[in-house]
């Protein structure tokens, strides 16, 4: 009896073992199937980060063979935990081409993909499970804490790369490369929605503790271990960094409102009047429609403010650009970018290129829905342009019938005035023009109360951008407030906006709470 019982137990044990090992191999096979189908195009069939789409990406897709992962909960230089990799697959990496796969894969599938990804590097088998760091809770957010964070931001020299105002414009910024020698931009700390590892205080603190392996961003844990600063002070740095960005990521809206002001319009971008006008955020993307395409634009967004006084229209456009081009400190960067994005093209010496900004309007206000082709129009529907350039610093009005066809207006037809300034990684360019001009054929005549199409193009010379290699927006609309209607419509609009804002606040709070709960 007892031997039969023992045999039975053994048999059950064996079955369990067989089942378990079968389940494991099945998982790996499913992981591979999913990987090959959805991940290999960027990360490569062998996980080397060299898929067919990889060449168009900066930063490049992760090379899994090195076992180096940016976003981890483990100490600097260590492997990530499975949960670390699962999380990135789930939510993606903001500021890169890596999307979140939460809606595509279920938890089990994500686990299988992680199991497969780990087979690309011998380190996982060699070193075993890594130990995550214990992260505490942030101290309460206070003015003193923020001031302390600011003090340490300077003391531990975050500004060397990220810049004093946090715009990614520090003196070392043009020299930074990742572990594969591709140019690496320090994060623009004023845009926490682009942080690779997420933009909450907790996430920022974790990056300070672990570093972003494979990038120039080091770990600051040793500073706590050596007694130079306390854990709480490092939390304050994280809180300070978080405070550099707005509470919420900018919302994209279609219409820029030119506020009616009963005064002289601003003479320069630094005029205090601009502080009273709400900026509208315009996201920008690389121009990838026409040759030569551009996959690595510097400018990922503009803020636009507009005002008019019934006589003149003023536009103030600000954007972050770590260099005032041309700047010889960025010539090497320019070459790295060219070699990274177009590795097979002969690249001569880097040219000294200026920064540029172009505001595009139709030649006349469209009567129907038809607007000119958004890439500088065509022969049927030309466009009217305000072209600003950083070197020599000037702005011109022009007319174009397609990319590369812009012709400056004759001197007699020009009425545009402009003023620009660059400070700590930010350009501010102000344009002013009379609503009505003498040359109504070659220059748009602005009318109040209309939705006038408007679009933007931006170039960073230090990034090697010129011609078709630029950042572009789609068409938006600008609406010049009318004197009478403005008061009538203001309160309902304000009420609507207030309701919407309140709604977003509620949602944001709820999301944040959920996130905090999840991370704790």
């Amino acid at each position, binding site marked *: 009896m007892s031997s039969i019982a023992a045999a039975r137990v053994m048999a059950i044990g064996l079955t369990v073992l067989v089942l378990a090992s079968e389940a494991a191999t099945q998982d790996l096979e499913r992981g591979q199937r999913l990987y090959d189908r959805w991940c290999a195009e960027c990360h490569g069939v062998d996980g080397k980060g060299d898929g067919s789409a990889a060449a168009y990406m900066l930063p490049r897709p992760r090379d899994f063979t090195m076992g180096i992962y940016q976003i981890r909960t483990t100490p600097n230089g260590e492997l990530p935990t499975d949960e670390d990799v699962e999380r990135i697959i789930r939510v993606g990496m903001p500021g890169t081409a890596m999307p979140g796969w939460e809606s595509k894969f279920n938890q089990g599938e994500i686990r299988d993909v992680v199991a497969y990804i780990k087979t690309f590097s011998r380190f996982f088998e060699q070193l075993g499970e890594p130990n995550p760091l214990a992260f505490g809770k942030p101290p309460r957010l206070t003015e003193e804490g923020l001031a302390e964070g600011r003090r340490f931001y300077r*003391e531990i020299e975050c500004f060397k790369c990220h810049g004093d105002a946090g715009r990614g414009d520090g003196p070392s910024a043009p020299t930074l490369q990742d*572990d594969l020698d591709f140019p690496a931009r320090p994060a623009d700390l004023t845009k926490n929605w682009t942080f690779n590892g997420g933009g909450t205080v907790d996430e920022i603190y974790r990056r300070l503790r672990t570093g972003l392996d494979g990038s120039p961003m080091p*770990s600051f844990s*040793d500073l706590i271990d*050596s007694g130079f600063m306390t854990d709480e002070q490092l939390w304050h740095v994280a809180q300070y960094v978080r405070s550099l960005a707005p509470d919420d990521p900018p919302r994209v809206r279609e219409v820029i409102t030119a506020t009616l002001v009963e005064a002289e319009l601003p003479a320069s971008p630094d005029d205090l009047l601009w502080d009273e006008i709400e900026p509208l955020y315009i996201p920008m993307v690389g121009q990838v429609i026409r040759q030569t395409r551009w996959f690595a634009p510097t400018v990922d967004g503009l803020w636009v403010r507009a005002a008019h006084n019934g006589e003149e229209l003023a536009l103030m456009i600000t954007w972050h650009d770590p260099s005032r081009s041309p700047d010889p400190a960025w010539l090497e960067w320019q070459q790295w970018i060219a070699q990274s994005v177009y590795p097979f093209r002969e690249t001569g010496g880097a040219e000294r290129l200026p920064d540029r900004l172009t505001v595009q309007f139709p030649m006349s206000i469209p009567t129907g829905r038809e607007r000119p082709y958004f890439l500088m129009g065509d022969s049927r529907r030309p466009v009217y342009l305000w072209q600003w350039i950083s070197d020599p610093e000037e702005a011109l009005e022009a007319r174009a019938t397609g990319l590369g066809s812009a012709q400056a207006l004759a001197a007699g037809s020009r009425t545009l005035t402009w003023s620009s300034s660059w400070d700590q990684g930010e350009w501010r360019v102000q344009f002013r023009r009379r609503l009505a001009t003498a040359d109504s054929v070659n220059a748009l005549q602005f009318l109040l109360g209309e939705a006038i199409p408007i679009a933007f193009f931006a170039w960073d010379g230090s990034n090697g951008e010129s011609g078709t290699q630029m950042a572009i927006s789609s068409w938006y609309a600008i609406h010049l407030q009318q004197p009478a209607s403005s008061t009538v419509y203001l309160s309902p609009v304000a009420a609507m906006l207030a309701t919407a804002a309140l709604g977003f606040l509620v949602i944001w709070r709820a999301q944040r709470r959920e996130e905090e709960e999840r991370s704790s």
Partner: protein
Amino acid sequence: MRYTKRSDTLGLLLALLVAAGCGGGEQRAAEEGAVGGETGAETMASVVDEATAATVAGSVMFVGTAPEATMIDMSEESVCADKYDAPKYSEEVVVSENGTLASVFVYVKEGLEDMTFPVPQEPVVLDQAGCWYTPRVFGLQVGQEMVIKNSDGILHNINAKPSINRGFNISQPVVMETKRTFRSPEVMIPLECDVHGWMQAYVGVLDHPYYSVTGAHGSFSLAPLPPGTYVIEAWHEVYGTQTQEVTVGEGEELEIAFSFGEPSA
């Protein structure tokens, strides 16, 4: 700093320590005995008999015309720029007046597989002073401490980029020291500072003490080596590696030479 002037003899010193360890008496010797003791027969192998030990020594010659050194622009970092009376030049290729090449890492690549060596207790110090790594090229044993020292008191990050070992990237914004070790032999591991792109050092990690770095006189010495056949490799950051197979008999002092350089135009 300790090893910069004596890098030629570093290997020798460490080897002597091994020998000293066998004599016993000191705490270090006891520890070394413990390390060797784990692996029985190999413990015996790590005993190098001074009486019969051989030496492989020589120099690394440079042929052709040395590339012109480029001037380092430290204007962004006045703390460092102010430490120099004359402009600092790159040190990738340093050829001395006697026609030898400096900063070549010469080591025993093959031939010591059956032996184990104790981990030196003395750390190797890598200093960052004047936005410059000292030494530029150095050796380290697996498990031996590398003390990374910031003497400048401004932000340096030390970004180690190995391919066999795990890397690290740590920040040192003040005068401080950080200790790190490596787990596996690897020749060479680049060490870089991302804040100051010109700062570059290389560490060769071995599981034995037979390495030497050429200095101003371009010479190296690997001793005391047990008689036998070895593959000796010379590594240079610009010119790559060269190997030679050598056989040394009891008490032999073998002279060999390596030669790197620019292809003649």
